[in-house]
């Protein structure tokens, strides 16, 4: 129980600090879209009416929404289940917006946006939300595998929870518009 709490608090603090103290210096976040070959969870980031609109769509229903990425131990199941139940409240389709000035381009594939706002996403009351993305390349037996990692996080009841989706750039899951 204590370990769970520590894990939970640690994760929350790590994300919470990023959530409220990211300083935006640039609004040059590219529009991007990621859709797996056979659609699973898609993300669409686009400019409309001077705002950055983000859509997240779980095509196969909320039961197939990604709720965790990373190392899992037996001790984490309870936490992940509770996290999954909270994330499920946001529904199969999420549509949120960011002010362009709260988005930051760090380097190719590495973006972040945040918004501090008390609102409701689906049926989940949140104090704010944000995204972080980065790309990576790994090698297996000399073959290069490139991925785009997308994380959407929300602050609810004072703690941050996130869902992460990884896209295969070798299979051209994503496109990034020129900016």
């Amino acid at each position, binding site marked *: 129980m204590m370990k769970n709490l520590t894990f939970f608090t640690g994760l929350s603090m790590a994300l919470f600090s990023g959530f409220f103290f990211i300083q935006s210096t640039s609004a040059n976040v590219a529009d991007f879209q990621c*859709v797996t*070959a056979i659609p699973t969870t898609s993300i669409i980031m686009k400019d409309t009416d001077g705002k950055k609109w983000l859509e997240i769509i779980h*095509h*196969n*229903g909320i*039961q197939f929404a990604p709720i965790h990425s990373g190392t899992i131990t037996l001790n984490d199941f309870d936490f992940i289940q509770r996290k999954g139940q909270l994330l499920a409240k946001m529904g*199969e389709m999420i549509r949120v917006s960011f002010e362009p000035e709260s988005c930051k381009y760090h380097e190719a594939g590495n973006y972040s946006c945040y918004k501090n706002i008390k609102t409701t996403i689906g049926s989940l009351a949140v104090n704010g939300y944000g995204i972080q993305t980065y790309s990576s390349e790994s090698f297996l037996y000399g073959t290069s595998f490139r991925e785009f990692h997308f994380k959407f996080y929300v602050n609810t009841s004072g703690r941050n929870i996130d869902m992460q989706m990884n896209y295969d750039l070798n299979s*051209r*899951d994503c*496109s990034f518009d020129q900016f």
Partner: protein
Amino acid sequence: MKLITIVFLSLVTFCASSEPLSYYKQFFDRTNNVTHDPDFPEYEFVSAKNDLYQVAKTGPDNAVGAVLSFSLRENGTYSFWLLTIPHRWKNEQRQIRITKCQAFNGHWEHREGKLFLGEDLILEPTFLDGQNLLKPTFVKTKRPAGTENINITINDGSIDTIGGVAPDSPNNGIFKCGGFSLPFWIPIPNERPW
């Protein structure tokens, strides 16, 4: 001579579309041993499916793609699902619409050298590029509009979970379609090869 040719061609046609049950068993669900190191055994689950979803042009700026995935089992049951993905190009942007997949479950029957999947689909043998394959004929299940000219063939390959169904799921392998149709188009990379 003409008669011999006709008899020969008839025989070839008959042989190409009529196979014993053993032919179809190569497409049944199974676990393949893919061990490279005898100290570390590895297995993969294999089931029948069409290779990648194929996209057929239906107009200057439109196309449609179709995906079929199967679970054909030794115990006489089958499951398959069909997903169609309409494509369009607008302002040089490639877009797709997500439709809900259709799932079918029932008992297969081998007769006349063919595999009848209830009244949904008939599978017949075909041979292409040195491979034994299956060719589906849609009966009660409607062939997706616009795909009439796609030569849909089915082989087998490793599969985990696609389209919201897991062939080796604990639900007795019954396929169900979750998800929903989207009323709007979503952009996909123009560079995608299919």
